[in-house]
């Protein structure tokens, strides 16, 4: 059974990648299992400077999902370069560096600093975060802004650039095409949906930040729909993410058009979910008649 997937810059031994922000830099999970079993790891968003992130509470539960408003807490790109990446070098897995920022220049800064790290195999641009330069709206919500930051990132980068799209848009296909046009090597779909919960006792939003990002199984149908639509409109590979909990979910994303997947919030529910899925994948693929995982991508819209 072949589980390996070759994507720009990434030789994934299997298509399972913990999603950015849901796995830290792997240190905690490394105490539970050998990270070398993973296809890759999308590390926590890096910004030029250290960020404390949003005030707490940052977490709220929702039906079949959760809201988070971490606010990109990280120790800054230099700390990550000096402390996290060298430590990650010991594992035989592909490291994807997720990059975020408050303006376009931030992306360029982080990429230029990380270009030299042999551990980083590709960049993933998180363009969902509110952007100070554009009145707090996300770069991911307008095709021209998304394309612009992609172009700057591509110019700066010595490694393939994946762009992680925000689902909070009217037309995801339009954004995806703009980003492809701007030179992206691949897409990651989807980031979290914007949501909110209100605490009945206080009458105020549960999250200190008021709104937060919705993730978990609740959003899977939205993610599948977006991957399905985008996969038919672009010719760069897609990494699917949103609500994955088991090998069957992975297959659903692959059928929808993804070439690999990221697993997010489920790592909190079952800390062993990634190795569990990797274990189960061969038998699930066999059950549905495959002996090579690459045969499954886009099955749902291919004529057979």
């Amino acid at each position, binding site marked *: 059974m072949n589980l390996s997937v070759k994507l720009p810059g990434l030789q994934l031994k299997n298509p399972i990648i913990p999603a950015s922000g849901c796995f830290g830099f792997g240190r905690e999970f490394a105490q539970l299992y050998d990270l070398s079993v993973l296809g890759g790891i999308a590390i926590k968003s890096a910004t030029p400077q250290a960020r404390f992130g949003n005030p707490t509470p*940052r977490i709220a539960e929702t039906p079949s999902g959760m809201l988070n408003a971490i606010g990109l807490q990280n120790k800054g790109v230099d700390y990550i370069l000096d402390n996290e990446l060298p430590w990650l070098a010991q594992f035989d897995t592909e490291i994807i560096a997720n990059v975020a920022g408050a303006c376009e220049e931030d992306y360029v800064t982080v990429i230029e600093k990380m270009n030299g790290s042999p551990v980083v195999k590709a960049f993933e641009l998180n363009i969902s975060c509110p952007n100070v330069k554009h009145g707090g709206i996300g770069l991911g919500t307008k095709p021209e802004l998304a394309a612009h930051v992609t172009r700057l990132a591509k110019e700066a980068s010595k490694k393939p650039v994946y762009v992680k799209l925000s689902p909070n848009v009217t037309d995801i296909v339009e954004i995806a095409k703009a980003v492809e046009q701007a030179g992206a090597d691949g897409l990651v779909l989807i980031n979290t949906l914007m949501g909110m919960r209100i605490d009945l006792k206080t009458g105020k939003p549960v999250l200190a930040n008021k709104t937060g990002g919705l993730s978990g199984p609740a959003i899977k149908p939205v993610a599948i729909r977006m991957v399905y639509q985008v996969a038919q409109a672009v010719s760069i590979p897609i990494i699917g993410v949103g609500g994955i909990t088991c090998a069957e979910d992975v297959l659903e994303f692959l059928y929808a058009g993804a070439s690999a997947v990221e697993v997010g919030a489920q790592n909190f529910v079952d800390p062993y979910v990634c190795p569990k899925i990797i274990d189960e994948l061969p038998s699930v693929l066999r059950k549905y008649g495959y002996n090579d995982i690459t045969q499954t991508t886009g099955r749902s819209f291919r004529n057979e």
Partner: protein
Amino acid sequence: MVENTKIIKQEQIGVDLYRMELQTSMTNQAKPGQFIQIQVPGMYLRRPISISEIKKDSLVIIYKVVGQGTKRLSEMEEGQTINVFGPLGNGFPIEQREHVVLVGGGVGVPPLYETAKQYRAQNTKVDVVLGFNDKEQIFYEEEFIKLGCSVSIATMDGSQGTKGTVINALKERNIDCDCILSCGPLPMLKALQNTYPNGYISLEARMACGIGACMGCVVKDQQGHAYRVCKDGPVFPFGKVVLS
């Protein structure tokens, strides 16, 4: 470790308050003040609950029904299995000491029980001060006495023991000590920190991962450095982190 544990005991011990005993093989790793993350059927995130007692083959937890998750937990029956992740976090220090004071408020009391047990096992003098809203809420007084602790009670309405907070009880009894181990509501923990020089507090926070990966549960120290309640805590020395 993640384990399907068997509920070997489930009993109501107070108003909305339950005591549950889980058969598990994680007992030899568990320390007082650590917690476990419980997967309540039908809920998405796990629920963090302190370890209240460590037995040979089982862990005891004591929990209050405050929402959907704890409600469903209370409806589970003996014999059913429930998935548990743990033990997690850093617990209370168990050191060679002559005297410790344990201060608990409300559902902050449970983790102090195993702490008391382990200190009593090494013959440390253990003073226990427990604060509740009223007489009806009191639990585990007898259990601490049986361990050989000297127990004082404070109730906000004065229906039993000292009227007021645990601080009032500590003052009234003239209890002083260079090691206070405490768990309870934030105002109580703040008051303790401000009144006494040395000790430890155990914090609560909204958690997702419970192991330090998601940054959901952070608190700051005086310098603005971030600490994760789940991984760097839940027990912190007095004064280490800012209580807001």
